[in-house]
């Protein structure tokens, strides 16, 4: 059976204009990479929104895979932004192959 190692997968939902702040933080933590997924609509405490790329009121999902140490550093780096900028962060363990990459 193929060998896997455990890494953290972190996903951050952010307003699209703020994605650059999030990826800059990932880069600062020296994580090898990130990937951005589009998001169509949603609802939170501030109400519902729907496909409004024109007004810049849309959101994106940033996903990154990192070692436990890097992930903790990223969580700390982003913590102050979570409340002020309304980010949503979830994090969990995943198995990856070729773990040395992350």
């Amino acid at each position, binding site marked *: 059976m193929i060998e896997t190692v455990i890494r953290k997968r972190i996903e951050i939902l952010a*307003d699209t*204009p*703020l994605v*650059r*702040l999030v990826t*800059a933080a990932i880069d600062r933590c020296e994580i090898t990479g990130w990937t951005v997924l589009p998001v169509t609509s949603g609802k939170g405490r*501030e*109400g*519902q*929104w*729907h*496909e*409004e*790329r*024109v*007004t*810049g*009121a*849309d959101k994106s999902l940033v996903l990154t895979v990192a070692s436990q140490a890097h992930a903790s550093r990223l969580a700390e780096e982003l913590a*102050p*932004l979570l409340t*002020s*900028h*309304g980010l949503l962060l979830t994090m969990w363990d995943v198995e990856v192959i070729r773990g040395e990459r992350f």
Partner: protein
Amino acid sequence: MDSVALQTLTSPVILFFILGMLAGAARSELSIPEAMAKGMSLYLMASIGLKGGVAMAKSGVNGEVGAALLAGIIASLAIPFAAYALLRSFGRLSRIDAGAVAAHYGSVSVVTFVTAGEILKGVGMIPAGFMVAVLAVMETPAILSGLYLARRGVAKAGDDGGGGLWHEVFLNASVVLLLGSFAIGWIAGPVKFEEVKLLFDGLFKGILCLFLLDMGLIAARRLLQSRAINARLVTLAILFPLVNGMLGVAVATAIGLDPGSAAAFGVLCASASYIAVPAAMRLALPQADPGIYLTMSLSLSFPFNLIINIGLIAWAARALAGS
């Protein structure tokens, strides 16, 4: 003024906007794909940039241009200060929310400008080509004023957005596209423009219809979902366009612009940004509530400008020119 009002209310452009608002208010599932809406907004900016540049190539540069650009920059910087005072006192907003809203009213709405252009054309008051350049320079100064007002005396804690913000402000997509295609229109001139005129001029009004259908949907949906809006803020969202529009027309007439251009200038002062400024505010003032500034600019002032205020401004520009 009656002819403009009639012109407005039977124009397919405005009727599609109203259809969008009605469909949005009725919670219809109708929606324009994001990519198409974004594409249409890029098209509209490239078109008016090009047409402005071509008009500039025809007319040449004259003294008026400089005066209009300067007036635009000053208006964009100054309007937020007046708006801020009212938003704090009458509107009862926090410093941060008041600063963010004020920035929107100092800046401009490309689509309001474009729609006014079509309506003014319909009554024979064609704005000068250089007004596109005025539009472009008015987008960003208001952001500086708004941030100054919001942050005055506040220690800027962890100003992460900083670097990104200046980038956003000066290389922002609409400024680059407006000024870029303005330059292209100027270089290419009227003869070369002929080759692409069908797309950028012939289809303009039709595409504006579809775009405004979408804006109507978005404006109505946002209004339905807004929670932070009260009667005071609604009042201000009507008052700002009214007063700024009239003052803008007066200033523009005073510096010698023709009635069409003066009306366009009034519309720029009256209009509130809902594209460039919200994005900048998310970066620079993330604590400000988009439920306030987007709802005021997009769901209240924008429809008021389109349906009523453009007509009033055109009437004022004519009246002032006639006197």
